[in-house]
């Protein structure tokens, strides 16, 4: 009974998340097109420009010393050589940034859509289904693909940036690895699920 509630909660949450991301993606696309169409003046970096965090390696600037809280339980410091790069939307690198943002959103939508379908198809009466195995494998591939895209983005963005900025010390700050780990975990679940399906079939054909 409790598991039924959890499943219903997950089903509703994923659906809500999917539709929020869908609406956000459509709004973002419309706003981006409007921004590119309305921004004829090149070099005018308005608030609608894209912003990226980059780190400049090799400048040998040292981090500032730590500042401690009153009870000395928390400390913080300003990180050296970290910059925010703002891109003009109607430039080559701006178009690239827009395309990459749309790719990430599309990927997010496909992942959430697959999760939505999995939770919709899951039932306690017949938990093992071939369609769910296929969707789990697709999800694993999508998570791994997201990391591959992040890596490609890292190299492409740096290459575009080095065209615009003479210094080649700026490198995009990105986190790679989470997608691969999540993908592999889902792949393991898919393999175990597939074995469960085989056992269920075997059980059904045992008289």
């Amino acid at each position: 009974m409790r598991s039924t509630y959890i499943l219903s909660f997950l089903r509703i949450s994923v659906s809500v998340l999917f539709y929020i991301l869908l609406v956000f993606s459509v709004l973002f696309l419309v706003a981006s097109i409007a921004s590119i169409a309305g921004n004829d003046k090149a070099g005018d970096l308005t608030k609608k420009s894209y912003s990226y965090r980059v780190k400049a390696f090799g400048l040998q600037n040292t981090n500032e010393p730590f500042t401690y809280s009153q009870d000395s339980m928390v400390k913080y410091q300003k990180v050296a050589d970290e910059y925010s790069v703002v891109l003009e939307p109607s430039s080559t690198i701006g178009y690239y940034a827009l395309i990459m943002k749309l790719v990430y959103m599309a990927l997010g939508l496909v992942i959430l859509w697959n999760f939505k379908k999995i939770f919709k198809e899951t039932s306690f009466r017949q938990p093992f289904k071939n369609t769910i195995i296929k969707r789990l494998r697709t999800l694993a591939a999508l998570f791994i693909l997201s990391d591959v895209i992040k890596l490609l983005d890292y190299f492409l963005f740096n290459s575009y940036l080095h065209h615009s900025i003479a210094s080649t010390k700026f490198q995009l700050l990105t986190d790679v690895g989470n997608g691969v780990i999540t993908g592999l975990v889902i792949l393991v679940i898919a393999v175990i699920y597939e074995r469960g399906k085989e056992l269920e079939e075997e059980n059904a054909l045992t008289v």
Partner: protein
Amino acid sequence: MPIIVNLDVIMARRKISLSELAEKVDITLSNLSILKTGKAKAIRFSTLEKICEVLDCQPADILEFVKENKSSSE
């Protein structure tokens, strides 16, 4: 599969219908049909015991091992 189920032969000899046997053995008609058509992957000893008891036969009368000819399948 090299295990052949000869349940239909024994049933014909004993002149017993599938539904009657299912009722006497106390298994579902669909499960008995799975066994009869050779689709079953396993049979419980308890089911085999009841079938043998109702049909008054030996397990070997129902199940038969036939060696697969590999060259014919290639």
